[in-house]
């Protein structure tokens, strides 16, 4: 626990915040039929922090990410990302089937304002960083599920590239919505190593939604437990286990068990 306190206080000392949610509330519809997805969610994510959002169905995890990505507006409260470059990744790779692998990434680079002459080279770099060199000319359907998800990761990273001419000093926030949920366990474990490495190398701030407790403990600096209908922050668990972690290590399992118990307690409130 001591470690946790040190980590928390050193973070507070820098006092930098990459993502700040204050009293965020989101309702869909209006009147009696309105569905309250999020209620009074306050959360601060430090730059370079890896935060896992954990919750059962209906906790508004995806809604939360949509709000941070500015795809949707909160009903009340505020969200501040300090103008960070934001990328979002989903459970499905959602690649454009009419483009090649490199075409998908080059389109994202184009949207980031990267000049045409540089796009191919930078797409190749991004593909190399997800171990997909040599697959540039393939089409998404020719790749396996895990490979497609890595292309999606490279595309998300493409949206966060800084301009080479000048570093604007703005942060980079990667939002991930159960990105490995549809993959087999073996592929998923390898991608955990992969995302951890990329997170470190690029000093990304990551907000990672999952319903898999072990995955959350494996990856997160902090696990934030959300309640369901409406989503509220129930409890936060700092994860101080040394990296790199293994998803099947006893330490991960033990903390995951604690969090699972808390999650079950939360879920059982809805049964009665």
């Amino acid at each position, binding site marked *: 626990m001591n470690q946790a306190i040190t980590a928390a206080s050193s973070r507070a000392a820098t006092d930098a915040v990459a993502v700040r949610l204050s009293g965020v509330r989101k309702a869909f519809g209006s009147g009696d039929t309105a569905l309250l997805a999020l209620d009074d969610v306050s959360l601060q994510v430090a730059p370079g922090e890896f935060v896992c959002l954990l919750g059962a169905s209906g906790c508004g995890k995806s809604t939360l990410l949509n709000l941070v990505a500015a795809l949707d507006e909160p009903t009340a409260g505020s969200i501040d990302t300090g103008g960070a470059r934001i990328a979002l990744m989903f459970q499905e790779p959602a690649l454009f089937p009419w483009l090649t692998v490199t075409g998908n990434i080059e389109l994202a680079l184009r949207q980031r304002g990267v000049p045409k002459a540089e796009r191919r080279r930078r797409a190749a770099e991004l593909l190399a960083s997800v171990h997909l060199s040599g697959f540039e000319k393939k089409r998404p359907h020719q790749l396996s599920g895990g490979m497609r998800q890595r292309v999606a990761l490279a595309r998300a990273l493409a949206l966060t590239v800084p301009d080479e001419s000048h570093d604007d000093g703005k942060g980079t926030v990667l939002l991930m919505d159960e990105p490995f949920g549809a993959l087999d366990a073996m*592929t998923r474990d390898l991608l955990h190593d992969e995302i951890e490495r990329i997170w470190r190398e690029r000093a990304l701030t990551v907000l990672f939604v999952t319903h898999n407790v072990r995955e959350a403990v494996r990856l997160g600096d902090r696990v934030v437990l959300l309640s369901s209908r409406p989503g509220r922050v129930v409890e936060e668990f700092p994860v101080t286990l040394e990296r790199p972690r293994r998803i099947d290590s006893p330490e991960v399992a033990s903390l995951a068990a604690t969090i699972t118990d808390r999650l079950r307690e939360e879920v059982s409130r809805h049964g009665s």
Partner: protein
Amino acid sequence: MALETHKSPDLDRQLAGLDALELATGTRRSPLARAWSALWPMLTAVAIALTAWELVVLSGWKEPWVLPGPRDVLPEFWNVVSEGDFWAAVGLTMRRALVGFAVAIVIGVVIGSLVSQSRILRRAFGSLITGLQTMPSIAWFPLAILLFKLSESAILFVVVLGAAPSIANGLITGVDYTPPILLRVGKVMGLRGLGLYRHLIIPAALPSFVAGLKQGWAFAWRSLMAGELLVIINNTQSVGTLLHYSRELSDTPRMISVMIVILIIGILIDQLFGLADRTLRNRWGLRTETG
């Protein structure tokens, strides 16, 4: 930014191994084998059709000069296709078809993109367009002849009305069924306005648009044949007039030969659209594993 600093070689190898295992290696057949496997069912079907036809003739159901068999018609078919006049007639018909189809594409695309823009327009015109699509084109001819007399315009009018609704509908369906997840990705990427259309909606609508073109062609071709039989313009030779005059002269072998030509043109063009459709589906990975 220092990237690629500490890549673990182990992870490299493991991922590469998994990738290699997961990429299924499809076996490729030779082009000759593929062509043959597409051809023999077709040839068999033709043989069965010819046999059935011959059997009907042999049964004596109709007099042989009313319904001649393939043995009388096929030599006449060769005579017909070796005439210069015949090819001039086919040329005029194909020119009408292509001009009509091109005009229908322009009109279909304009209407389709306008209507797909807004939900209200879609509600207002969607069922009207579908209604026009199901309306038999021959029902337009009385009006066309009143409006344009017996002229090229009358034929063009009906061909365009036959094809344009299908083309518009194909486009509207394609835009409507752009996968929502891709739209979300586009939004995250910051695609909006024209860029959204250029990079996302138009490519996403392409397969459905091609299907609309294919259907539009079928309607255009039918309308054209009806038009050439009904709107006989003096001093012109088209496939329709060939059919018309061979009936007038009770030259049944010639009439059936022209019908076979119409059938063959229809099949050839359908094959072209099929090819475009298959190429698109293969590239997108939408292929259904048949054939």
